[in-house]
């Protein structure tokens, strides 16, 4: 649900041919966003959003990136998050 997706050029070129939920999703994904954010924006249940996003990925209208970090990067990422949160504290 935090996994990031973004519209492909194919997807953005095809919005006029898409049904409205699919079109709304592709339009919203002009920048990288989380699936949960799409769900909030489009007003669809998270589970429904996932199905529609999977449709769009299969059509190559969206592309995704998962959540899995290499083990050796995890520590560095956590340290950066700590610094980031401390900075806005």
């Amino acid at each position: 649900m935090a996994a990031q997706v973004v519209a492909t050029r194919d997807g953005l070129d095809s919005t006029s041919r898409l049904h409205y939920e699919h079109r709304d999703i592709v339009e919203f994904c002009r920048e990288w966003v989380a699936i949960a954010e799409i769900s909030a924006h489009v007003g669809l249940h998270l589970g429904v959003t996932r199905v529609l996003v999977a449709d769009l990925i299969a059509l190559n209208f969206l592309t995704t990136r998962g959540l899995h970090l290499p083990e050796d990067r995890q520590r560095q990422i956590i340290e950066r998050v700590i610094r980031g949160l401390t900075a806005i504290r």
Partner: protein
Amino acid sequence: MDSLPFADAAPDQGRPPVPVKIVIAGGFGVGKTTAVSQISEVPVLTTEAPITEVAAAFDRAEEVPSKTTTTVALDFGRITIDDEIKLYLFGTPGQDRFGFMWRDLTEGALGALVIVDARRLDDCYPAVDYFERTGIPFGVAVNLFDGLLTHDLDDVRWALAISDDTPLITFDARDRGSVLDALLVVLRRSLTMPRRAGPPTDVTGS
């Protein structure tokens, strides 16, 4: 949207952000949504529905004064950490009957914060138990309703049967700095806690 210059809409070449998440668990009315909304840079997505009579009986809402609606599904917020990292905060009900969501929610999480109402400790047992079994780093934060700690922290630690290594703090879900401090406690725990090798073992039982 269609009038946007097309050059702005070529994100598939852009560098993808690294999403990370912290899970915020706890019983109904314990302050999860409040905590997330204090620090999220976007309006919190919340699915709320009035507590039905059946659910009210089940969740003993009568012990929580002036709570008229409750979060039944999921709420989340976002904090942009830097030009690459986005931190997501996902709130989830702590009860066993929502356990079907936990695996998805916690997959890849940096850690978890369990928010506790000291008057209703048993609400958070399933979440504490889940995080211990799966080896997800977590901390426990007792929300100080009205600024009062109704139980001694040592008593809370004993009642929850959490190890001395597990951070246990008090906090105020309405206070932004306090919520950030609670997340920092979780992250520091995440840094020092040895990681289990490989994915969590099967945790579908019980």
